[in-house]
């Protein structure tokens, strides 16, 4: 692998956020899960002491926000302890959870530990369909109870809805639910098509008309709820003319740590061939951020091919997503095909054309096929 370092690099800013993927264990099995297709085992997970050290290193490096995610981060018994250490270091602490195991006792321990915010994911507003999508009976009801618990504890709540062709018709009802739950923020996030999402693309990708209707719904709700609820909206790349600034640029603002401790510039980076990702067990976080070859590989603009190299958006979208470029073109160093200027852009339209009238069955998220599910 060649590490491209730019000669006139500006001084490196500290990372803003650390995304701690605590575990890949999860009671749900969403077919669009952002975890990699090859999931890490519980026995290989980073131990508590290493996490505590990493949190201290993160604070010293200038990380401002800690996102505890998974899998289901509540599956880690030491989560309250880690939240407390992060809060003591003045980091903003956020938990991204499915909520199904967020009981009274855990809620109290997290509050006591100094948690700042919880993001709760929903699969739909119709319980039966929500439970079908998440692959767990009774999950939706438990999420509603968790939302109530979060609000009763006085914490701000973000209600996250991942949307796709099998629930997109209910986005208006999702926004109503978020409002009724007292969420200060909601996320209407179209599935991103990497890993499991890519595997299930035909079952998930909405039509152009569905996308446009949803965009109009979100815009109207934003105007109506201004000052009361912030709505973040994430669109699918398949109908876009320009790519998203994936991770705000490779290794520009975030460090992602996998359950086993590998430091990644983005959650899907392990899907890329030719990389060796070092572990936070072995290398200090500051060294990884500054000089790890995997972090340097696509940082900045020096690595870019045309049309990005001479494009005036190259420091706006950073050439899009490396993992999407690899997944759809076989080369991580090409322009993201979501960009209409990319020579590969036609693959997006081809995928839309291939999605079919009726969605095929889901391939649910699971540990590798040889093992029993769950």
């Amino acid at each position, binding site marked *: 692998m060649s590490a491209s370092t730019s000669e006139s690099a500006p001084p490196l800013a*500290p990372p*803003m*956020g650390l995304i701690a993927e605590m575990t890949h264990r999860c009671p749900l099995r969403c077919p669009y899960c952002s975890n990699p297709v090859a999931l890490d085992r519980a026995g290989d997970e980073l131990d508590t002491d290493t996490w505590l050290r990493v949190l201290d290193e993160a604070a*010293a*490096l*200038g990380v*401002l*926000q800690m996102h505890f995610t998974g899998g289901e981060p509540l599956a880690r018994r030491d989560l309250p302890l880690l939240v407390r250490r992060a809060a003591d270091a*003045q980091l*903003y602490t*956020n938990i991204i959870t499915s909520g199904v195991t967020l009981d009274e006792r855990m809620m109290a321990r997290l509050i006591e530990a100094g948690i*700042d*915010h919880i*993001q709760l994911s929903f699969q739909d507003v119709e319980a039966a369909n929500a439970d079908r999508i998440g692959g767990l009976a009774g999950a939706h009801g438990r999420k509603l109870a968790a939302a109530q618990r979060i609000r009763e504890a*006085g*914490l*701000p709540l*973000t209600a996250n809805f991942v949307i796709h062709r099998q629930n997109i018709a209910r986005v208006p009802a999702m926004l109503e639910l978020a409002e009724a739950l007292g969420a*200060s*923020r909601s996320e209407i996030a179209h599935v991103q098509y990497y890993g499991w999402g890519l595997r299930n693309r035909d079952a998930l990708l909405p039509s152009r008309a569905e996308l446009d209707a949803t965009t109009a719904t979100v815009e109207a709700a934003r105007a109506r709820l*201004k*000052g009361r*609820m*912030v709505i*973040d909206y994430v669109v699918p790349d398949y109908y876009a003319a320009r790519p998203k600034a994936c991770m705000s640029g490779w290794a520009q603002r975030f460090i992602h740590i996998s359950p086993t401790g590998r430091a990644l510039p983005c959650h899907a980076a392990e899907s890329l061939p030719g990389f060796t990702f070092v572990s936070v067990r072995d290398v200090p976080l500051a060294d990884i951020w500054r000089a790890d070859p995997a972090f340097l590989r696509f940082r900045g603009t020096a690595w870019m091919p045309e049309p990005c190299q001479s494009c005036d958006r190259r420091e706006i979208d950073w050439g899009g997503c490396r993992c999407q470029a690899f997944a759809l073109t076989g080369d991580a160093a090409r322009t993201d095909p979501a960009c209409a200027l990319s020579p590969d852009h036609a693959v997006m339209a081809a995928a839309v054309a291939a999605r079919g009238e009726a969605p095929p069955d889901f391939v649910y998220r699971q540990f590798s096929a040889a093992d029993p599910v769950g």
Partner: protein
Amino acid sequence: MSGALDEAGVPRFCRGIKFRHDAVRGAWVVLGPERAFLPDAPAVEVLRLIDGARSLGGIIDDLAARFDAPRAVIAEDVGVMLRDLSDKGAVTL
């Protein structure tokens, strides 16, 4: 800009929003869920006066006493800034 803000109102940070000094950057930061930004120097002056007790009018008075600008100009600037932060879900007015 729509009508002037009520100067008797007391601006507060929203639940879940933190405003603190970051020693690593040597800068003030506003932190919230999925949000983090470094306010510019004038915004920092305003945000440092938000304590959940001081009214908007009180904040403007304080700034007018310390900075050499007509009160009406300061009131206008502070109003625009706080409205923007309110739209972003960082403060309530």
